[in-house]
């Protein structure tokens, strides 16, 4: 057995043991339905930061960021890295409001229902949001599986079909315990992503001779991206606007910065911490914890230009990171980097799978049965089965991925931003924001975004979000103000008995049960 095989086997076996141990430990934390969906609204800072960092860092960012830097140089730091960080920077503002209520929502569609349709027996708004989320997160999950399968197959030579079924096992293992196991395994994954990237960065710095030679090379290189391509202008990779020009670069920066903050899985993350301040600090420390990860990705991307000036014809820049690490690092470092990619894929996909499952079971199936009385144990068991089946379906759909789904990737994030931006922001910061405004904003935002995308508009998100704002304001001003029960919990420290009763009715809890559970968790 070669050293390389032994290194890979030891690293992977250790990873699986840690993952299984973390999952089994966290399974014991799940006692109620809230525990499964949002960690019982009692998550501390360490797990909160761990799960947020790991969810934030996906295969797309681990593979994509070095690729953007290899292709465009310093401009990628403004367009993508700074853009994404700005998106995360405004998240504490949302977290500050989302986690205010004493009896918060368990899911994003339930939050929309509590804020806009608190008195409806069956909330069509909740159903509409849940359907959009279900479709969007299933596509996300499917694409994480496809992406991982292709990467794993390219790097290790293991057949694609085996890779995706192995991924299914890990995905289901980390998702079956609900939010607690997702958060616990994500925290482990966040640490592994950092360790893997530090090893990879060390290998690149060693091979290039350090930061100085990397910057010298960037100042002089004219090597095209692919062999035989058009040579670049010398020094362009170090200019802030790169080959884009400032107006195009600012467009990329703003579209990355706006919209991502209202993605439903982030709103869901803000409901999990034990109080408002923990929710705010969670996002602040997430940004701080992401700094070393992105320093590594930047060094790898820029260093790669020196180690491999041009890619072979037909190769995309997405593979630059594994290519460089595999060629210029010892096998143990290569294995650790591969673990970082695996950890990034699992930690993003399990969160998407949990959101997909809760949308289908909690916000569609359960919401359509307002009289149904399921106890927490039964509902949690049903949710586990839903997650299991959806995980299997996402892998089965990835065996021969249909083109339509692959095209859907770019649609989903933009559509979420265009649809939910104004209902979420205005709903949290404007008492007058009402049900009609939410319907108008979500429907117009979604439809305009899809049409703009089909018509090849240069920035469909801006068009969708812009018209969604107009529709929201028209909807709000043409209809009466919302009832106090809809907004009170997001604006006042103490709510009226009727607001409290509405929240409990939506969650299908009685007041005594809520107090008992809350007191027990707090004392524990």
């Amino acid at each position, binding site marked *: 057995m070669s050293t390389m095989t032994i290194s890979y086997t030891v690293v992977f076996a250790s990873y699986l043991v840690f993952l299984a141990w973390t999952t089994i430990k966290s399974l014991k934390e799940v006692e109620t339905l809230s525990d499964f969906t949002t960690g019982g609204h009692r998550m501390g800072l360490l797990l909160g930061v761990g799960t947020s960092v790991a969810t934030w860092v996906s295969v797309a960012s681990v593979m994509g960021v070095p690729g953007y830097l290899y292709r465009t140089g310093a401009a990628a730091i403004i367009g993508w890295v700074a853009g994404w*960080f*700005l998106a995360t920077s405004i998240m504490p*503002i949302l977290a500050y409001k989302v986690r205010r209520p004493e009896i918060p929502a368990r899911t994003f569609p339930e939050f929309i229902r509590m804020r806009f349709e608190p008195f409806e027996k069956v909330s069509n708004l909740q159903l509409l949001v849940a359907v959009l989320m279900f479709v969007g997160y299933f596509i996300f999950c499917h694409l994480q599986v496809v992406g991982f399968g292709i990467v794993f197959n390219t790097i290790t030579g293991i057949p694609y079909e085996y890779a995706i079924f192995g991924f299914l096992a890990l995905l289901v293992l980390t998702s079956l315990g609900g939010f607690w196991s997702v958060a616990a395994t994500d925290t482990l994954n966040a640490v592994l992503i950092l360790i893997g990237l530090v090893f990879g960065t060390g290998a690149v710095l060693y091979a290039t001779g350090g930061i100085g030679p990397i910057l010298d090379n960037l100042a002089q290189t004219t090597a095209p991206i692919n062999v035989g391509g058009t040579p670049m202008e010398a020094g362009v990779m170090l200019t*802030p606007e790169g080959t884009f020009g400032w107006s195009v670069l600012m467009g990329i*920066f703003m579209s990355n910065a706006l919209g991502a903050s209202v993605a439903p899985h982030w709103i869901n993350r803000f409901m999990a911490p034990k109080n408002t301040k923990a929710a*705010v600090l969670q*996002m*602040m420390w997430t*940004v701080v914890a992401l700094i070393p990860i992105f320093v590594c990705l930047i060094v790898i991307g820029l260093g790669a230009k020196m180690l491999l000036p041009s890619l072979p014809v037909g190769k995309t820049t997405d593979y630059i990171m594994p290519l460089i690490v595999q060629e210029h690092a010892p096998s143990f470092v290569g294995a650790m980097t591969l673990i970082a990619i695996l950890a990034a894929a699992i930690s993003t996909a399990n969160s998407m799978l949990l959101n997909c499952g809760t949308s289908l079971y909690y916000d569609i199936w359960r919401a359509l049965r307002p009289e149904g009385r399921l106890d927490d144990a039964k509902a949690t068991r049903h949710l586990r089965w839903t997650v299991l089946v959806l995980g299997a379906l996402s892998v089965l759909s990835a065996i021969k991925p249909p083109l339509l789904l692959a095209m859907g990737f770019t649609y989903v994030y933009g559509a979420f931003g265009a649809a939910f931006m104004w209902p979420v922001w205005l709903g949290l910061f404007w008492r007058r924001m009402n049900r009609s405004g939410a319907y108008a904003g979500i429907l117009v935002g979604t439809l305009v975004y899809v049409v703009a995308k089909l018509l090849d508009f240069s920035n469909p998100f801006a068009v969708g979000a812009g018209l969604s704002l107009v529709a929201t304001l028209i909807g709000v001003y043409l209809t009466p103000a919302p009832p106090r029960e809809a907004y009170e919990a997001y604006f006042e420290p103490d709510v009226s008995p009727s607001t409290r009763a509405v929240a409990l009715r939506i969650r299908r809890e009685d007041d005594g049960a809520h107090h008992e559970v809350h007191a027990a968790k707090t004392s524990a």
Partner: protein
Amino acid sequence: MWTALMFWGASIAFCVAVAVYLCSLIESSGVRRWGATGSLFRYDE
């Protein structure tokens, strides 16, 4: 290169400034359920 890094640094500084401001708002509210503990960065008693 430095201009690009300054954009990134500004995003990070903005996040910290916003979070500190929000924590100070929570502290000045005095609402313990929101995490007011008497200390800016402590959220639990």
